[in-house]
């Protein structure tokens, strides 16, 4: 990495030290102003909004009260909804870790052309509209005679059709699909740092494939799995489109509830409180697990 640029060849203009000291601030100032103006201020206003009062006929009143926070803290409806949000996100994260990590490993062992082809196939969906991907699951789940049920019954895995639409199961499967590329990508990045010669060395010393996976590959890709898990979890817990389409209007998660409070009930202060709580919970979970992971895998992170 370069430090301050070497501009000693310059003999005119302000002194090189002054230039080097001012330049980074002059270059980042526009972006910094942009972020203060349209990120920091709107977020602060949202936090304020969560303390305002609201009534069916009087609208939003700019007073400072704890009504919304009290309602969220005491009404079990919100507790259940937040538990569902985090339960669904955790299950989706587990599925992506269990299937995404081995897939990244298999992908990494493929030869050049196949590797880039399947990388495109697996990472590509990341950039395809979430609405289109979730619509696909809605079609696959169908009612009782959706393709997924037909397939599972023809395999003899289930005797009668499982309900997928408007259930948490359906939400978890669709979310896991939407988030899978993030996990594969994260493990893939970890695998790039792994020296294949170590595996060969273990093989030549007589280690079985299972031992190699367990004692050599797994410990080294674990940071990738964990950072992938953090990304998948936080994106799943704040997901909107998939829970809204698969869960319908009744099975709500934090994001769909905030949406309904804002655009259907028009109780903005309550919706803001739900959103602020979601943001705070996620920041706590992400920062907390990041700290845990970095301590545990300090040597792997260098």
């Amino acid at each position, binding site marked *: 990495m370069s430090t301050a640029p070497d501009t000693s060849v310059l003999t005119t203009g302000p002194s090189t030290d002054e230039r080097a000291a001012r330049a980074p601030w002059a270059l980042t100032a526009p972006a910094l102003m942009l972020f203060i103006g349209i990120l920091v201020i709107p977020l602060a206003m949202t936090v304020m909004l969560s303390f305002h009062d609201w009534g069916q006929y009087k609208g939003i009143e700019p007073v400072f009260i704890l009504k919304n926070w009290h309602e969220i803290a005491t009404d079990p409806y919100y507790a259940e909804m937040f538990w569902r949000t985090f339960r669904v996100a955790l299950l989706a994260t587990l599925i992506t870790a269990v299937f995404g990590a081995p897939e990244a490993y298999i992908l990494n062992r493929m030869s050049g052309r196949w590797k880039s082809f399947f990388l495109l196939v697996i990472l590509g969906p990341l950039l395809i509209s979430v609405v289109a991907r979730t619509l696909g699951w809605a079609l696959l789940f*169908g009612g009782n005679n959706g393709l997924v049920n037909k397939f599972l019954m023809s395999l003899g895995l289930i005797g009668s059709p499982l309900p997928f639409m408007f259930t948490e199961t359906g939400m978890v499967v669709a979310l896991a699909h939407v988030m899978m590329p993030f996990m594969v990508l994260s493990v893939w990045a970890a695998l790039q740092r792994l020296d294949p010669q170590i595996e060969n060395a273990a093989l030549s010393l007589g280690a079985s494939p299972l031992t190699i996976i367990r004692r050599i590959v797994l410990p080294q890709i674990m940071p990738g799995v964990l950072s992938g898990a953090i990304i998948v979890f936080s994106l799943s817990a704040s997901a909107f489109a998939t829970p809204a389409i698969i869960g319908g209007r009744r099975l709500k998660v934090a994001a769909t509830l905030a949406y309904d409070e804002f655009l259907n009930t028009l109780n903005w202060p309550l919706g803001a409180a739900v959103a602020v709580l979601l943001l705070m919970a996620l920041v706590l979970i992400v920062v907390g697990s990041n700290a845990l992971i970095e301590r545990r895998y300090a040597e792997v992170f260098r």
Partner: protein
Amino acid sequence: MRTNGPISLVFHTVFVVFMLAPIVVVCLVAFTPDGFLSLPTNGFSLRWFRAIASYPEFVHAFWVSLGLGALSSFVALLFAVPAALAIARYRFLGRDALAALFLSPLMIPHVVLGIAFLRFFTSIGIGGSFAALIIAHVLVVFPFALRLTLAAATGMDRSVEMAALSLGADDWTLFRRVTLPLILPGVVSGWALAFIQSFDDLTMTVFLATPGTETLPVRMFLYIQDNIDPLVTSVSASVIAITMTALVLLDRFYGLDRVLAGKSDAGR
């Protein structure tokens, strides 16, 4: 180098089928000749693709998305390129904090951003306007524009710049004639990735869009709320086809894994 055994290949096949199934199903159903959703379809017809033209809301929403994505990605780069150059080249107090702030829109739930923007834009009197949508999208796509520009600026050979400086180029000439051409692949890929993100965003945009400024994902989402029929599958299939084309081009041009991983020293 060891190769994949039969168990690995079976796992891989099942995995790829899982990843592609919903996308393939949407595309298959889009070609149904029937007036209702049928799986498997009983034939092949383009009637639902032709039907898109007679549903002006989708066409209008497509143009809104296109303009919004192009404009907001461009504006984001105007702010991101200087910031990326500063972060890539200088060690200064607050550098890491600034980098973290500039990437923070990736970590903040879009539903929270949508709410914050709706509140903010309503209170300053531009709620529901196209300008409000652009401002909001600039912020959301900024991290993507920044990361790819940063990756290009970090890997750049500085000696060419030194040569230009010693030959008497001023700052603006240096940027226009030397620096920008050198980081251009990163800037263009940053624009493309930012465009795709903007084009796809639903969660934040659904709070800000009004009937005149609905984007395509918002229009599709609201349509699905009321009814799921072959029309919305043909619209989805068209969007998938457009994205796939963009992806293949991006992969040829810059390498998809590089684009998505956005490898840079400020990414951590």
